[in-house]
């Protein structure tokens, strides 16, 4: 190697060395910064793990716990998370939950780190030294196939809150029902009072009639047992005729049967109203059962008569031999009552005084669903309100005329409880149709 070549090579290698040193420094700095970021991220993750309101565990393929966060340890009644390391995680749950958990493990393996399960089943977890508690478990397979992440939540509070919510919901429904009955009370009293009035008048009339007839009989009594062909016959006939004239027997003869008929009719009407109220308020079983919706509609129409008869006609177009629906009669009555009262109120607001509107209730069955339509010509619902009518406490009625719970409860019952449909079709300026769809009892579950 000549001197020039040597020099050239030395220069090049020096330059290469300096470049390598610079690269090394840069790499070291990058590494340091990456380490810093990693430490910060690790700290953040640690903070999340130790404060998240859930137990999070890394579990080996043999179901032993590799590590678990503090909230998880506390959840199962342990002071130190390390006390759980190496323990079989399935031993933290009751034996009945084992098949559910094993199924979750299999599903996690199939999903392979593509997110959590869609539905998390409830299991029973064991708190050390004491009771069991309801829990939700989600299992996610890590990229290292021999480990999985278990996420466990204590759902005791959630269940209690749900139970309280259901109790409140039940009370709300009961109060709404009482509110409806309260609203109906004066109307029902009026409905009953009318036939009671003329029953009472007719009975008084019949009472006087019977008194008069007995007086006539008394006048004739002395002549009973005497010889029919005697000199007493003419006076007897004269006495009877006089009495008959006095009491206006012809009139009594003509009116008494009618009075009796009216009385019986009035009593039947009262009986019908009372029966309807009884059925409306206490429809028998508290459980869902096969319900004849046509009969329920007739009952509710009777009970609510005073609410609509001054403002509207009510036309029932009920398909005969309608299949039964599976629901609670009381709930359906309540829903229908709300719809009828709303229809009547809408008509009252939109029609001129003395002008009668029209409410029509029709039923029919189609493809396993029973449809009940309640249509009114009460002017329809403004479009800006249509999206809110099923919201709890939403109302456009005057204060004191409704709490806005009727449709919200109706929706909750029909759609959520009985898996039916409640649809509104409204034409502003014309009227509204509410459509209830309930599954037929015999097709329930198909």
């Amino acid at each position: 190697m000549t001197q020039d070549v040597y020099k050239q090579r030395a220069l090049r290698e020096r330059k290469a060395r300096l470049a390598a040193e610079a690269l090394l420094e840069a790499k070291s700095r990058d590494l340091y910064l990456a380490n810093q970021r990693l430490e910060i991220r690790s700290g953040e993750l640690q903070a999340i793990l130790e404060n998240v309101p859930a137990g999070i565990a890394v579990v080996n393929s043999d179901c032993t716990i590799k590590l678990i966060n503090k909230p998880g340890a506390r959840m199962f009644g342990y002071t130190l998370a390390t006390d759980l390391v190496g323990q079989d995680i399935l031993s933290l749950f009751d034996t009945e939950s084992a098949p559910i958990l094993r199924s979750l493990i299999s599903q996690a393996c199939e999903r392979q780190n593509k997110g959590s399960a869609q539905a998390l089943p409830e299991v029973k977890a064991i708190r050390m030294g004491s009771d069991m508690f309801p829990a939700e478990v989600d299992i996610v397979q890590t990229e290292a196939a021999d480990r999985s992440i278990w996420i466990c939540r204590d759902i005791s509070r959630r269940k209690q809150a749900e139970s309280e919510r259901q109790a409140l919901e039940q009370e709300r429904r009961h109060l709404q029902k009482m509110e409806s009955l309260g609203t109906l009370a004066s109307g029902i009293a009026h409905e009953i009072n009318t036939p009671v009035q003329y029953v009472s008048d007719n009975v008084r009339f019949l009472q006087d009639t019977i008194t008069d007839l007995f007086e006539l009989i008394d006048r004739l009594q002395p002549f009973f047992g005497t010889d029919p062909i005697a000199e007493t016959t003419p006076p007897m006939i004269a006495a009877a005729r006089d009495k008959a004239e006095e009491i206006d027997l012809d009139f009594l003869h003509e009116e008494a049967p009618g009075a009796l008929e009216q009385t019986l009719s009035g009593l039947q009407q009262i009986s019908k109203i009372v029966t309807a109220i009884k059925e409306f308020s206490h429809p028998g079983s508290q459980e869902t059962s096969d319900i004849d919706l046509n009969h329920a509609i007739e009952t509710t129409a009777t009970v609510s008569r005073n609410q609509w008869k001054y403002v509207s006609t009510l036309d029932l177009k009920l398909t005969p031999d309608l299949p039964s629906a599976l629901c609670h009669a009381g709930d359906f009555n309540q829903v229908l009552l709300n719809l009828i009262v709303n229809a009547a109120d809408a008509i009252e607001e939109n029609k001129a005084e003395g002008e009668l509107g029209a409410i029509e209730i029709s039923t029919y069955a189609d493809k396993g669903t029973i449809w009940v339509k309640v249509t009114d010509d009460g002017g329809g619902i403004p479009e800006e309100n249509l999206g809110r009518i099923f919201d709890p406490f939403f109302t456009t009625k005057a204060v004191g005329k409704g709490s806005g719970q009727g449709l919200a409860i109706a929706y909750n019952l029909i759609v959520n409880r009985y898996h039916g449909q409640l649809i509104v079709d409204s034409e502003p300026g014309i009227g509204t149709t509410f459509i209830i769809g309930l599954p037929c009892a015999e097709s329930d579950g198909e």
Partner: protein
Amino acid sequence: MKGIIFTEFLDMVDDKFSVEITEKIISQCDLESDGAYTATGTYSHTEILSLVMTLHKQCGASVQDLCRTFGAHLFQRFSILYPVFFDGHQNAFSFLETVENYIHVEVLKLFPEAKLPSIQGNRLGDDSMEVIYRSHRCLTPVCHGLILGCLDYFDHPATIEVEDLSAGYVGHARFLLCAEDAAA
């Protein structure tokens, strides 16, 4: 292109020719780096092409031969520098199957900015396989040399048929390898 290619190339020129030739070809190329290469650096691939062309003019060997020789040299060097990639392989075919999905993956962990060629080895049978080479640099002969070096390292005699699929624009070729025992 990573600096190791340049440092190994210049070392090969030192060995096969002379230090003087090495310095001469560097001085005759207009290199942005001035030939001061470090193995972990990154340099334009046009510099290696320039060096190869200048060496070709200097020594008269064809560019293809020079590249193939370099490829074989490079493979031998890899076997010394990175023995961990060679552990557990019984023959060349077994090794070539791991280049794309293991070796290159590990390289990218250390040098994520590296633009590696794709060298995909697919077994066609017990005694044959194909290696598909793709690169935005037309260095098919270097890949050929690497394969020759691999066969030599594992003492795995095989015939190689080269099918150029590049149409002259990019590096794209198919190498069909048949073990010579089977061919016989």
